[in-house]
């Protein structure tokens, strides 16, 4: 048997270590269950792509009766939105104030339709493209269309009508014939689709083009906007929901119910995790005291070992190993308990979900490694510090 360990295991209190083990295991298991539960429920409440899309929301003022002019946002309204802490940025949609005809030549036939353009400040556009710029005099207008349009055609229309499916690249190669008219002018441009947006459900052109065209084909009066795009830190935040409701603003495609559920979920999980953290902290305090007591009781042996030439690191190593073993065991058991709990609640959750839910305790494993690792490092630092103090005692 290792002689150092034989010497230094004196005064190791099985009872104190046992209390630490149980308390820390309970704490860790609660933390891991909470985190795992959160990561399992979150995708049920928030749609796909929410990580990208959820930071932005589009608001309007509702149309209340047929034929009503849409209500617009005044400069003060926008100013007020800017001032809210939970809103990071506000962008206004600018619509075309002139007539737009779009046409395409398709197997010798010219198809043409009335359409409209809108613009938002570039910061809100989720398409990265070098083609997305317009300078006055350019004959080509870059256009971004919603990816939905393409999906609608490919999956809704073409497949049922026996038409070929088209890819994004194919659309980008099509040259559109754009006719703008207003203010007694009628001019032709070419249009080119440069990208597809998941965020903006409209036909977008660059703001620079829009400003120039509104000036040229309309009176250029600074029209107020009927739609705004907001960048928000947390679309599920209750302050935001309350604010929008009080002002009578309506968020497009805002999952109101799920955001409330999401909020309640966050609160519930936070409470669970806090309880787990309290348990863990108490258990770490117990272990810390126990280590101090242990080192204090063995101080003569530690001192003598260093006097016969052992380094502080060598002397600390039995305790360091003990700590690592304890924390590893706690980590494995904690992750195991979280995985068992996951199996139990997943049976209920899967009733809510349409398909099979992925059931892997990844979140618990990652959190377990992080928490147990941090605990072990903290313990090791305490041991090294205390032994360092003993070695310098002269």
């Amino acid at each position, binding site marked *: 048997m290792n002689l150092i360990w034989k*010497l230094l295991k*004196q005064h190791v209190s099985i009872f104190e270590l046992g209390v630490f083990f149980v308390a820390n295991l309970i704490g860790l298991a609660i933390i891991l269950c909470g985190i795992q539960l959160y990561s399992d429920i979150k995708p049920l409440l928030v749609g796909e792509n929410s990580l990208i899309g959820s930071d932005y929301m589009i608001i309007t003022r509702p149309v209340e009766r047929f034929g009503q002019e849409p209500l617009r946002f005044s400069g003060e309204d926008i100013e007020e939105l800017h001032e809210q802490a939970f809103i990071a940025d506000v962008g206004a949609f600018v619509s075309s104030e002139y007539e737009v005809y779009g046409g395409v030549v398709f197997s010798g036939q010219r198809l043409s339709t009335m359409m409209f353009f809108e613009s938002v400040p570039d910061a809100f556009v989720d398409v990265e493209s070098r083609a997305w710029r317009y300078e006055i005099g350019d004959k080509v207008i870059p256009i971004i269309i919603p990816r939905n349009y393409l999906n609608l055609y490919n999956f809704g229309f073409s497949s049922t009508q026996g038409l070929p499916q088209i890819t994004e690249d194919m659309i980008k190669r099509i040259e559109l014939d754009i006719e703008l008219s207003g203010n007694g002018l009628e001019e032709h441009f070419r249009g080119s689709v440069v990208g597809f947006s998941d965020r903006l459900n409209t036909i977008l052109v660059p703001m620079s083009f829009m400003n120039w065209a509104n000036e040229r084909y309309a009176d250029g009066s600074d029209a107020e906007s009927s739609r705004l795009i907001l960048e928000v830190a947390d679309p599920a935040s209750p302050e935001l929901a309350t604010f929008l409701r009080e002002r009578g603003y309506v968020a497009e495609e805002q999952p109101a119910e799920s955001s409330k559920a999401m909020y309640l979920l966050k609160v519930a999980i936070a409470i669970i995790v806090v309880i787990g953290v309290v348990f863990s902290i108490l258990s770490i305090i117990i272990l810390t005291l126990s280590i101090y007591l242990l080192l204090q009781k063995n101080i003569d042996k530690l001192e003598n*070992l260093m*006097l*016969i*030439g*052992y380094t502080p690191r060598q002397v600390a190593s039995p305790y360091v190993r003990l700590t690592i073993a304890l924390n590893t065991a706690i980590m494995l058991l904690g992750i195991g308990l979280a995985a068992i709990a996951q199996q139990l609640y997943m049976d209920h959750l899967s009733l809510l979900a349409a398909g099979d839910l992925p059931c892997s305790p990844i979140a618990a494993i990652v959190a377990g490694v992080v928490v147990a690792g941090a605990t072990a490092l903290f313990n090791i630092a305490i041991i090294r510090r205390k032994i360092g103090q003993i070695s310098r005692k*002269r």
Partner: protein
Amino acid sequence: MKEIRLSNVVPEIFAERDDLRSGVWCGDVCFERGKSYLIEAASGTGKSSLCSYLYGQRGDYRGSILFDGVDISKFNTEEWCRVRRDSIAILFQDLRLFGELTAIENVEIKNRMTHCRTHAEIETWFEELGITDKRDVRIDRMSYGQQQRVALIRALCQPFDFLLLDEPISHLDDQNSDIMRDIILREVAKNGAAVIATSIGKSMNINYDKRLKL
């Protein structure tokens, strides 16, 4: 390490005394490798303090102690560990053995770190010193004289340039004291090392190169 030099060294508690008559304190003393020194002292003159200073246990002195010209007050923990493993072996007055371990384990705990001696060498010393039968007995069940012999064996389980012996034979009879001396002189000669022994009366029968009065 070739030499240990004490320059104007005095324990802090003696620093204000003006009646100090000492061959070591407040003087310039040099211990050289290959020689043997006896430091004779009355109790309370700081004999164990001197050993503690030389071994880096304590630093409550004035003046400077130099190992090969380097001031030891600058040594960090790592450097002291190296000195204690490779340069200075010590037989503590209070032995500092581990009561929970057996005689052989007390020796092994050092030798496993230095890998300096073979099992056969260690067994031979046990035999020569007449404690083979105590080999597997816990230290705290042994007499002080027996413990002293175990502590010597442990001290020899490392390479050294200086062997510090703090009252090495205080609890030994003359016969055992001579056996110990023979082993020490043999190992010191093999290492080309120096012996620095202290005594408050009884001292090992060696032809010391220098005797100092503390």
